């Protein structure tokens, strides 16, 4: 194999794109990375995450902060986590799981708002109101059962 093979134009472009991603991260500006299928978007994402971990991982953890990395599917989440060794400074999850993790702690508020979601006021009436039930989020149909201390919002 030749020692120094000249980078082909695609590789050069990829490196340029990656460099400008690093610059954006360092300067804390937003950016959008557009590329076709198989061009290496996830690869760049992982690169960017590793970059952040290396530069700021310790500091982020100290300040109880995480990088939110939102994906479309659980498969993609797992993929990313495995490539960054599930580093605690990164929170990778699907959009649903991410949002739910933000709001699930606010149970009294969820109980207050639940009847406003279509279908829920009737559903709750059947089981005698929300009471002190815990609002949870799971796969399957939305459901509330008479003696269940939880009611479930639908997963999808």
């Amino acid at each position: 194999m030749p020692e120094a093979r000249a980078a082909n134009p695609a590789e050069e472009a990829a490196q340029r794109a990656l460099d400008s991603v690093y610059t954006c991260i360092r300067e804390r500006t937003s950016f959008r990375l557009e590329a076709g299928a198989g061009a290496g978007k996830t690869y760049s994402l992982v690169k960017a995450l590793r970059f952040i971990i290396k530069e700021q991982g310790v500091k982020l953890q100290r300040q109880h902060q995480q990088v939110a990395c939102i994906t479309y599917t659980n498969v993609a989440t797992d993929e990313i986590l495995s490539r960054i060794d599930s580093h605690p400074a990164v929170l990778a999850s699907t959009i649903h799981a991410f949002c739910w993790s933000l709001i699930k702690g606010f149970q009294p508020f969820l109980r207050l708002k639940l009847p406003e979601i279509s279908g829920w006021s009737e559903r709750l009436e059947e089981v005698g109101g929300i009471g002190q039930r815990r609002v949870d989020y799971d796969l399957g149909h939305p459901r509330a059962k008479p003696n269940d201390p939880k009611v479930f919002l639908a997963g999808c």
Partner: protein
Amino acid sequence: MYISKIAINNFRLLEAVVLGLEEQTTVIVGRNNSGKTSLTELFRRLQEEASPRFKLEDFSLGVVDQFWTAFELQRNGAEETQIRKALPEIKIELTIEYGNSGADIGPLSDFVIDLNLECTSTKVNILYALEEGKIPALFDDIEQEKPAFFKAIKERIPMLFKTTLEAEDPNDPTNRKKLELSILRALLQCGFISAHRTLDATTRTEKAILGKILETLFTAATSETANPDERDKAEELTKAVSDIQNDIDVNFNEQLLKLIPAFNLFGYPGLSDPKLHTETNLKVEQLLSNHTTVGYEGINGVNLPESYNGLGPRNLIFILLKLLEFFRSFTTSQPAAGVHLVFIEEPEAHLHPQMQNVFIRKLGEIAKFFSDQYNGGVSWPAQFVVTTHSSHIANEASFDSMRYFLVQQRTESPELLTTKIKDLRSGLSDEPSENRDFLHKYMTLTRCDLLFADRGVLIEGTTERLLLPKMIEKLDVGRPDIAKLSCQYLTIMEVGGAYAHIFFNLLDFLNLRTLIITDLDTVDRGNDGKKCKVSDGTHSSNSCINRWYAGNGEENPTKDELLEKREVDKVTKNRRLAFQIPHYEGDACGRSLEAAFILANPDIFDLAGITAPAREDQAWTAANKIDKTDFALEFAINKTNWSTPRYIEEGLRWLAENPDNSPASEANEEQEATATPVLAENQEGDNA
């Protein structure tokens, strides 16, 4: 982010206390045994034990009986919820304030459970309570007799009780969230500098305390989170040691080997040479803690060991290094805690007064200096809680930052003591600010130890100050059976009638039994309010007296009304007013202490045998002429055979009586009846 309030229930003396904390330094004052150390101890347990356990003895004595109550409920078949309610639990409730800026609220993410944008505080509860479902286990097969019952309970508590953590919505107590106890560490870090610092051991075998601290500093510097500068230094240290290590391996161990006897000497046939090999290991940590001493530079290369320095500077250096250690352990902890509570117990040890003043003034600056110097200006969210017995520290700190621990008897069962915390920020908030300033300045200027005393006396001036010790001595000698005033911790403050009233609220607030000795200061309102003899006076110009009775709804009492006041009319809450009254029944009354003193001792001043008005006249003239200090010194030191003027004696008698710790008092039960002395020539004098 900072802790604004700590409420504690049922821990030792702290049965139900609320302690407001300042954002930076809070100074806790109070006498011995008032629960200051319990406060520190409680946080020490939270910090040091992963799952703190408390013993039966840690519960406040007042609530221990509730175990029995709960047991009786269970025996009578009460509902479990009812039994659980009756069981005591140790509870710590922290209120944490956070700004809305969002910069530092990461550690709070698990604890904020409200969605109210206006609300910038949250509550964190730490509970030591019976585990769920363990009521039967607590009471099953237990002894039915009280002493045996409590013995069994004592054994069962550590097994069945558990410490739990929950977040509470400050505006909705029903909104709570259970949390893992371990995440408390992400929120709260504590550091302790305890009163027992073993600095005073001067023997050679003593552990080098300061050297020990160096080790912790080194460990902090090697951690992943330390800043690069520190880490470089630590690495250099490690490198220096590893160079020595190489040297040792080469030279030292080679020589060492020669010391080992050759095994073939033993002539074991067939014993192959085991080839011994020596290895000496050096570690920076061990070098620092065991073999490094901090010394002081001397001359001619003779350095002085750590223990040869004065205790004061050692104490100060110790505290400073300790603070630096806390700071380092904070900056390197992963994750960083939201709040760092640093308890400093009695920093005044071995320090002379000026040094104490400087210490408390500089404490806040130290925190800032550390973060500027070593942390690139990132602030260190340290809150200092300083407990002290020093009036120098107390007076230097502002009123607002002071908390006063007071031990009181429980109202229903006086044999049980409980701590009350008085918050000088909120407690005196009604006081106009110029009065607060006055009090603070007064206490700073006069180094007064009001905050540590059992009893207080407010006096007019020098004469009282010089004569009072003798008067107290005379009183105690005359009454061997009663609690002696000279054995109590008395603080005497020279305030003067014009300012004494400013102290009223503070005295009430501190619940300090105080005698206020002032002068009648009669004036004649018919004659432009000029000062005059008591017999010619219509009113008093003394603002302390006038304010006292104005406070009781009596504006401008006349002189005659004042002279008719009885003992009960002179007591309000925990303070008593004393002003001149005739020493002998029906005799003339002095206007000042000097005049009263002269009238009380007619034999010394050649007043016997003349009429009351004539006596008053002579006393008035004499009192106006004399040099007060000379007068007082003469009778305090040289001629000590005199009688104490009755108004002061009555007052001191009142002050000596009544137990301590009385709950906020209307506490003026029956007074010992004071027999009024009768002047022999009294009748005669009046009639003439």
